[in-house]
């Protein structure tokens, strides 16, 4: 089995040798390599997910009592099912909106040179660093009855009475899309950047209209990126609850909120556990069904040859037939789109730029509100502020507890991002590059930290780490954050690896590179954009994480989100805006520094290549 695998995978460079003993040595080597690559993710998944989650499953029927009444209660009430359906529906809308809005921006990014790219990325990154609680409050300011939008509409005479924007599903979608659009852009960009625009170019030279070249050549190649971003967003979105709770109306209850209430208000842990298991199963079920229709496995299968070898699945065959039947209709649609968009597409870049600026404006709008609020003379969050003052900045300068929290969060985020990127990247290599049974299941399972409501993960890890006696230690906290950020790393890296030309590594080894040299000089440099995206997403996940930190913190310095949360629970004042603004300023400065260093590095490497 092993030898056969090695033969199949390594056929390019090993065929000329064809000597059994060498093959054996290599396969042994491969086996060892496989173990090394697989073990970190396996240990993380089993140690920090399977064991804690089995505790939850065990608890959901009260262990040996085998009391399934909690499950009965989950299904007995129509309300629970309605809330579950609504959660899935909201998650779906948010996913579609984020992907659709983000796609053109990611497309533009792939065409940009480094300077413009850095500028835009900074604008996309900034909102990500504004603590989510603050962002949500900024949206309340913007969407409120006497908020920015309503005031503008009324003064323009467009409406006579304020529109109800806040406390609606609309507000929830806006608030959540704001969180997910940057994530959509970055995950899609990290694999789209590796697609050659010359393909679409070639299609146009061969007579395709620009629309056809895009829809039939470029777009299909980006599908893996789109799907991986979509899955990531969907499963993260359905676990959200603080944003919907603050922005939505009473009918916008999400399932996680219900679970949190069951556990923290009703103190009914077993019911909370049962609800979470149901949610997890429903999510995995949906993804599995979806994988029958759309190529979910494109995220990690390294080449499309696998699908060619296999018999096409029923759904796929149906789809192909449908596509053929639709062909005339498709042509008509394409021509119509072409006639409509051709005046736009000729100046495509300018049009895309205008669109991108609009998206960036949407992304930075809450931040603008936050910055203005930090200079408010009022002790309350009123917008526009009645006057300007530096009082909140002075307060912040004196608040040493805020400074400590900030540095602790940075430390924690960096540690978690480092570990998560290493573990996740090795895991992605393993999941993408080797063949084994249950690969799809394992892939879905490795994403489950995003599917299980965070409060459940937090409780499970709490109990688990207490048993291991690492509760309240820095290492214990880092592991909690690693667990939550590894799925992002895996999805980003798997999508990038799919676009990785598998011939490059054997080529390097043919030219005499040792395995580690190949890794250092060929594989990792090519994966650099994806690695940076993955590391950044991991850092951000940790930097913005609230619940797991509360559970695992012990007596360490409170993290920044805990600090924000503690203050916001009792009082909303512009000090939070000042703190948020400061974080964004620091982050912007560090991103720009990193970009400058990278620019210089790139310039150096390109000159050395030229030489």
């Amino acid at each position: 089995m092993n030898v056969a695998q090695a033969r199949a995978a390594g056929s390019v460079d090993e065929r000329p040798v064809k000597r059994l003993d060498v093959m054996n040595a290599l396969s042994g080597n491969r086996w060892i390599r496989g173990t090394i690559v697989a073990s970190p993710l396996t240990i993380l998944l089993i140690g920090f997910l399977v064991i804690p989650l089995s505790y939850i499953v065990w608890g959901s029927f009260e262990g040996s009592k085998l009391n399934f009444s909690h499950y009965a209660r989950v299904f007995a009430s129509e309300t629970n099912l309605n809330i579950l359906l609504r959660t899935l529906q909201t998650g779906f809308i948010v996913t579609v909106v984020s992907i659709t809005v983000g796609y053109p921006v990611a497309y533009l990014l792939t065409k940009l040179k480094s300077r413009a790219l850095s500028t835009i990325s900074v604008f996309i990154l900034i909102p990500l660093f504004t603590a989510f609680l603050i962002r949500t409050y900024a949206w309340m300011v913007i969407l409120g009855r006497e908020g920015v939008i309503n005031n503008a509409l009324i003064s323009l005479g467009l409406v006579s009475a304020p529109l109800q924007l806040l406390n609606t599903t609309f507000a929830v979608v806006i608030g959540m899309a704001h969180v997910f659009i940057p994530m959509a852009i970055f995950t899609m960009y990290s694999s789209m950047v590796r697609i050659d625009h010359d393909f679409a170019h070639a299609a146009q030279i061969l007579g395709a209209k620009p629309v056809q070249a895009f829809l039939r050549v470029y777009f299909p190649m980006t599908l893996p990126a789109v799907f991986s971003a979509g899955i990531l967003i969907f499963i993260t979105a359905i676990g959200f609850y603080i944003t919907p709770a603050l922005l939505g109306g009473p009918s916008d209850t999400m399932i996680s909120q219900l679970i949190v209430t069951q556990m923290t208000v009703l103190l009914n842990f077993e019911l909370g556990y049962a609800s979470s298991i149901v949610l997890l199963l429903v999510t995995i079920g949906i993804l599995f069904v979806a994988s029958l229709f759309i190529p979910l496995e494109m995220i990690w299968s390294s080449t499309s040859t696998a699908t060619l070898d296999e018999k096409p699945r029923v759904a796929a065959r149906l789809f192909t037939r449908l596509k053929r039947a639709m062909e005339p209709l498709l042509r008509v649609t394409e021509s119509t789109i072409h006639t409509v968009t051709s005046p736009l597409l000729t100046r495509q870049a300018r049009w895309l730029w205008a669109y991108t600026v609009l998206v960036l404006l949407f992304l930075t709008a809450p931040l603008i509100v936050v910055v203005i609020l930090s200079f408010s003379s009022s002790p309350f969050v009123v917008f526009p502020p009645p006057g300007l003052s530096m009082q909140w900045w002075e307060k912040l300068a004196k608040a040493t507890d805020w400074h400590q929290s900030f540095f602790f969060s940075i430390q924690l985020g960096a540690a978690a991002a480092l570990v998560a990127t290493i573990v996740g990247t090795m895991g992605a290599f393993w999941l993408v590059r080797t063949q084994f049974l249950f690969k799809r299941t394992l892939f879905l399972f490795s994403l489950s930290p995003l599917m299980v409501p965070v409060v459940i993960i937090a409780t499970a890890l709490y109990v688990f780490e207490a048993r291991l006696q690492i509760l309240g230690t820095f290492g214990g906290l880092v592991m909690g954050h690693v667990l939550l950020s590894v799925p992002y790393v895996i999805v980003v890296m798997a999508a990038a690896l799919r676009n990785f030309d598998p011939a490059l590594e054997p080529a390097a080894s043919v030219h005499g590179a040792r395995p580690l040299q190949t890794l250092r000089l060929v594989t990792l440099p090519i994966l650099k954009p994806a690695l940076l995206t993955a590391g950044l997403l991991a850092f951000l996940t940790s930097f913005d994480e609230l619940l797991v930190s509360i559970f695992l913190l012990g007596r360490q310095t409170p993290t920044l989100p805990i600090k924000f949360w503690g203050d916001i629970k009792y009082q909303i004042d512009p000090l939070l805006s000042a703190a948020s603004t400061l974080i964004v300023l620091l982050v912007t400065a560090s991103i720009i520094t990193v970009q400058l260093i990278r620019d210089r590095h790139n310039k150096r490497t390109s000159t050395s290549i030229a030489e």
Partner: protein
Amino acid sequence: MNTRVRNLAFGAALLLSAVPFAAQAEDVAENLKGTGEVVITSGGGTWEAAQKKAFFDPFTRDTGIKVVLVPEDHAKLLASIKLGQPEADITGIPGGALKGWINKEAVEEIDYSFFADNTLAGMPEQMKNKYGVGALVSSAVVAFNTSKFPDASKQPKNWVDFYNVKDFPGKRALPKCEKMLDGALLEGALMGDGVSPDKLYPLDLDRGFKKLAEMKPNVGRWWVAGADAPQSLISGEVDIAAAYNGRIFKAKQEGAPVELSWDQSLLQLDFWVITKNSPNKENAAKFLAYISQARPQADFAEAISYGPVNNDAYKLLPKDMVSILPGSPELIEKQVFQNYEWWNETAADGRTNWDVALERCVAMLSQ
């Protein structure tokens, strides 16, 4: 001259009445001295700041026992209690939750032997529960934006006015379902429908939810965090709100155009509990005995404007302060006690009234 004498006399009287308490505080501290630490959950923000000033710092100074704070999350705390290694020795819980914690065997009995006699004498019976010591008295009140209701004679003053959209037009703020207990959602609706405060319990759920359903189109904000209610009044999102008195008072103090009415306000009680198998049980009892004294209670009430659990604290507070503390002798006539026993009553299927009401609330609101 005359007034000066009177002032002096008044001052002297005040001093005299204060002296015994001051003396007492020192005596008690002697008996409460100890070593080691006591771990308390903390909510952060202004809340923590007030507790630090009134309770934590003086306690450490007078007794030598260190206070350690950990972030508050009751799910976490219960998980740690289940493991037999409670993460904190003391936590504060809403009155409605006490029964649940007792049923889960998560709390220790309180050792009242550390409490001084005059502390115990100052505390009303319900503050000295077998398993919990009263922490503070708060109220869910009707609050409004004064710029929307400038005329003092036409301001909403109780739940009847809150539910009267014709005479008091404007958007309302109400708590979401998970806050229905502390936000007085059902009690408010029933009193708004004309139920008299003394006949409130047992709550008529059908009638309450019917009233809420009628009100739904006029609700501009369903809040989840206590700070949301004043914020939505200040930002103009709503004109009248069901809110916690402390939040409204604080906003008003800082100059926000908000006001509250005590009429028909719902009186609520928070408890301090000692976690099961707490390793610092004795220090925890000492801490509770210390902070239940009149002086710390008065300091805390002054900092955050929630009512003290020791009636002697009123004597130490400025007069204008007393008149705005929930549960104070001046206000208690207008207020209604929340009946936790009713909320925790269990039906044959093991579900409490709170479970049933919560489920119905979610069902009604998510339509």
